[in-house]
């Protein structure tokens, strides 16, 4: 058994961590939070130059060809740094959709541009509040023209292209749309995490190019499964950083003549946070194995990784604020950066609730003896 990343990827992680510690200290997401800049374009360019945007893209399409495990490793660091860049939208979703379902020609056209960071991609699914069930989509494509409205598309106002989910019937359910083309109206929407911009996008006759492999509503779910795993790593990176922050503060802050971290009220809270982080990390590793091998268990592995990451995300980041006391609630402390981002990522691919539903459905179609958990 080898349930760990290769030495090469561990090196990549260390390199990425150093790079982001240098290029994306908290002042960078704070800059995006405090200004009208929708994302850190300079950081994004640097990331693309490092080859991260093409990490999983095969070399023949202009990528680095390190595979999906490399994306997981990078995602964790992106999460740790609360980096204000469209990495998840462009890499886990748009790039992945084209790799999974695109034609050879589409791959040749788009993947090199996504790999180089020349263009930013995103994924547009949700059309209403509530569960984003692909089967209930109303957006549609007729004669290559897309009609429909998508809510709160992450990075929707900065992306160049979007993979748009539509109710495809017997035709493909995912379509590529040039967001700068005609028939596309974008409106930036305010969210509780302004370090990642979002837009409402209305399509009225926009030109839409089907991804030929995306036939059936299940392909939308498959894309979400593939995206959920690196997203879980991004979430794990964030909660690890929040835990580290709480831990450092608990040692440094004194009350009643001793460090607050010597009170069991705080100690046991931090132990609970640690438990959540470790469980989320272990489940994310299983997800990594599943995306890496495109295993049949992917729907289960992705759901489990996602659920654990979502639970940890909320618990750890809110208790990080709590550990900091009143200071934790100030703009000046970084606690809220992790708190906002954790809730954003928890909702990004549909809430934990939706994934629990998916998980049990998947488990039911299998023999229950596969369930043995120990």
């Amino acid at each position, binding site marked *: 058994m080898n349930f760990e990343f290769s030495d090469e990827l561990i090196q990549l992680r260390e390199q990425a961590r150093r790079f982001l510690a240098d290029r994306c200290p908290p002042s960078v997401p704070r800059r995006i939070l405090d200004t009208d800049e929708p994302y850190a374009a300079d950081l994004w360019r640097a990331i693309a130059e490092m080859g991260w945007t093409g990490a999983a893209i095969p070399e023949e399409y202009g990528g680095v060809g390190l595979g999906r495990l490399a994306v997981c490793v990078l995602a964790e660091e992106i999460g740790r740094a609360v980096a204000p860049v469209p990495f998840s939208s462009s890499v886990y979703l748009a790039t992945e959709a084209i790799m999974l379902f695109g034609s050879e020609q589409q791959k040749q056209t788009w993947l090199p541009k996504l790999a180089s960071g020349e263009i930013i991609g995103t994924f547009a699914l949700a059309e209403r509040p*509530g569960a984003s069930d692909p089967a209930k989509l109303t957006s549609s494509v007729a004669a290559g023209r897309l009609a429909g409205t998508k809510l709160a598309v992450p990075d929707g106002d900065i992306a160049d292209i979007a993979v748009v989910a539509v109710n495809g019937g017997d035709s493909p359910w995912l379509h590529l749309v040039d967001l700068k083309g005609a028939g596309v109206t974008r409106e930036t929407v305010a969210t509780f995490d302004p370090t990642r911009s979002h837009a409402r996008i209305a399509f009225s006759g926009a030109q839409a190019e089907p991804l030929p492999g995306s036939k059936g509503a299940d392909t939308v779910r498959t894309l979400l499964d593939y995206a959920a795993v690196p997203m879980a790593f991004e979430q794990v990176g964030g909660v690890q950083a929040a835990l580290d922050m709480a831990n450092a503060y608990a040692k440094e802050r004194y009350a009643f003549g001793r460090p607050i971290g010597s009170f069991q009220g705080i100690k046991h809270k931090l132990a609970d946070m640690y438990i959540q982080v470790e469980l989320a990390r272990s489940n994310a590793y299983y997800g990594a194995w599943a995306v890496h091998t495109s295993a049949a268990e992917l729907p289960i592995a992705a759901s489990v990784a996602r659920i654990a990451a979502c639970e940890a995300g909320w618990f750890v980041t809110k208790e990080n604020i709590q550990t900091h006391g009143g200071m934790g609630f100030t703009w000046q402390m970084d606690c809220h950066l992790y708190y906002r981002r954790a809730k954003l990522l928890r909702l990004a691919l549909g809430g934990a609730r939706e994934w629990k539903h998916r998980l049990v459905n998947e488990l039911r179609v299998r023999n229950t003896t596969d369930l043995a958990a120990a």
Partner: protein
Amino acid sequence: MDFEDTPEEAAFRAEARAFLDANAERRKPGAVEGYRRGQDAPGAMERAKDFQRRKYEAGFVGIHWPVEWGGRGGTPIQHVIYNQEEAKYDVLTAIFGIGIYLAQPTICTWGTPEQRDRFVKPAMRADEVWCQLFSEPGGGSDLAALRTRAEKDGDEWVINGQKIWNSGAHYSDFGILVARSNPDVPKHEGLTFFILDMKTPGIEIRPIRQVSGSSHFNEVFFTNVRIPDSRRVGPVGAGWKVALTTLMNERHGMRDAPGPDVEELFRLAQSIELEDGPAIDNAAVQEKLAEFYTRSQGLKYTKFRGITALSRGQTPGPESSIIKVVAANKLQDILSYGLDMIGMAGPTMGESMPVAGIFEEALLYSPALRLAGGTDEIMKNIIAERVLGLPQDPRADKGLPFRDIPTGARK
């Protein structure tokens, strides 16, 4: 066992309603913005002061205070009844609460007759607005660890230091201040309590930006701020005991966490579609609703038990100590569950979101409710020690002169 007023209570309630109908607007049913802070709206402070003056003239300020303090000499239950009624109207009275319900009882209890005569009535009429200057950046839950210095200079005290989590310094006329007059004795013994004129030179007020982006609190800095000794409340070195009077009144006034509650979650569940139909039909959503409803009702009837005690002339039991910690955590749980239901569209802020966007808004202010007025951890210590009688934690600072108490790297 009934929910009815006694005849006397009913008569008082009618009197309160008559006053309110004549002087205020009833809140719209189902409005969710009731909890949103209104004092920043244009003209809000003037309207609030105007209403407060009329409320005072009508005898509804200090209802349960003795007549010699300027109160009505009524009962605590009358105070509760008036507040129950006032809550149905669109009025802004909370900003005068520090002056009326924290500062004045402290002054009446510990101050001189001259201080009482000078300050109580103007506070009740909102002619003078008050703020509180207790918390410090290095103190947190350990309030008595405050470091702001008060040094005697002739008939005056000279104040240097910094306070935090101040609400309203920028519009207040006076503040109640606790400062350290002697760092060479154990921490609770070296404090002194003052009334500070907020127009005194040397006071600098800086707003604190909160996670929600708004600034409802200030840091307040003191540089050689001078206070006449006549504005000292209670003996030199007795500041902690004096402050406890204020803190008891503060805790007594502890309230629910404002924001989305079961009703709003119910409305959300009725308006949203999940993968298997309307959210309200989903068994998992239903179980959550039932659990939240049960917790909300538990709080409601816990308060009723406290009111009943008041109504019988008893002190409310310790059960009221649980309200803040339960309410604040319930709010976080409800808003998080609500956002999960809204799903991918959830991050969007604004009135166009389901239930006027209060779930998203609450995400950003709710952490404060588990911290302000005593953290969850402090509240649980209080329950454990004062209600259940468990022993205190061993005190690392016990008996040490204040200047020798360990503070870590920071000073």
